[in-house]
């Protein structure tokens, strides 16, 4: 993931983007963990809340792939459908981890 490209696209400088991404990773990480737990527990209502929150945050930062995946999951769990979401949630986790890795590359902590 090229963070500079993303920064240019949404009109933030790289440092601002980094700060925003840190916030996103913190709240988004919680949302993702809640989503995974809710799907494992078969709790569609909680899954929906988590995917909805993740969708909103990713959308505002222009994180398109995470936004699309969260939206696709949200469209299902909102209707109480949890079947067939596993693959999408795994992909979402991979995208999230890639973002963490990209951020750590610039700012190793």
């Amino acid at each position, binding site marked *: 993931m090229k963070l500079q490209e993303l920064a240019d*696209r*949404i*009109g*933030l400088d790289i440092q*601002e983007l980094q*700060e*925003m991404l840190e*916030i*996103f990773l*913190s*709240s988004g990480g919680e949302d993702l963990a809640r989503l995974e737990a809710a799907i494992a527990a078969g709790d569609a209502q909680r899954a929906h809340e988590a995917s909805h*929150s993740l969708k*909103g*945050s990713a*959308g*505002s*930062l*222009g994180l398109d792939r995470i936004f699309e995946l969260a939206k696709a999951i949200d469209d299902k769990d*909102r209707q109480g459908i949890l079947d067939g979401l596993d693959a999408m949630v795994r992909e979402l986790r991979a995208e999230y981890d890639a973002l963490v890795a990209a951020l750590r590359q610039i700012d190793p902590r």
Partner: protein
Amino acid sequence: MEKALVVDNDKLIVELIAGILEAQGIAVTRAYGGLEALSFLKQENFDIVFLDLVMPRVGGDRICKFIKQSPRHAQTRVVIVSAVALEAESKIAELKPDACIAKAAYPVLKENIEKTLSFLQTKKRGDNMFSAHEGVFPRQIVKELLFAQRHFEAILNSLCEAVIELDTDHMVTYVNPSAQTLLGKQEWEVIGRNFVEGFPPDKAQEVRAVLDDIMTSHTKKTIELVLNYSDREYSLSFTNVIRDGEHIGTTVVVNDLTEKRMLEQERALRERLTGVIEMAGAAAHELNQPLTVISGHAELLLRDAERGDQNLVRRAKTILEQVERLGNLTRKFTSIVSYKTKECGGNITIVDIDRAARADGANTIKIKGLWE
């Protein structure tokens, strides 16, 4: 614009908006929920407030009403920033904010905020709402969800029971119109206040004890509390709100029992009066017969005595028998323990003294024989 308050339960959105404002030289205070926003607004003045509409507990709609009704914030501009800006357009318009911005990806959001700021520089408060919705389209599903939410709001609003919602610190987060009437306060005066502290000290202790009790329960629990003060009687029903085994708040349903109690007392009094009136009828009816016999025999006694008749003793005995009968009646009157009636002809109902009197004849008043 110098001072701004940014309110959203999504920290990322708060930071994004704060960053845009700070770049314009505006000092930003951040609030991550409705209650936190209220506590800032009660202490400070702001030139502009950016409000998210949908937040858990206290939503942006109520914060907006608070600002609009508060003389302290007469100069404050309100900008609603919402993910449901398009779908909730009519509801937002009712709130009369100065501007409304749809939540969107950062570049669009930034452009819309900057546009709004420059627009508000030239417009007075109370002018038509400025809307910035570029790049956003209404969604049917959101409209339906909002409709459902308004439906439930309408139900709560029409309840005659006062409904109050508290968070885990016992802060009021919701009051329906009946609760506002009962408390004699406006919604914005109540929200964010500690529920316990509204009561007189001794009652506050009772309320706190119930709330502490209910908070420790991990399953659904309801506790009823009846409070008497200021010549009124209230019933409070506390129920914990549990989510995943965690206590997340309490709902309190309050009923003013004073009117109901007064009606009950009135009805009881009316019943007693009816009983008394019918009892008077029964007494007159039952006493009439022996009195007729007594007066007849007294007349005959007088006539026989004038003639020097031997029937004197028999007549005197009859009189005594009738007096005894009257004595029995008065004994029954004093033993009435229930309310039994019988028809007495001509659609008149009187008390059935024999059925209404206590069987063991307690409270007997003995009539002493005149001759004993």
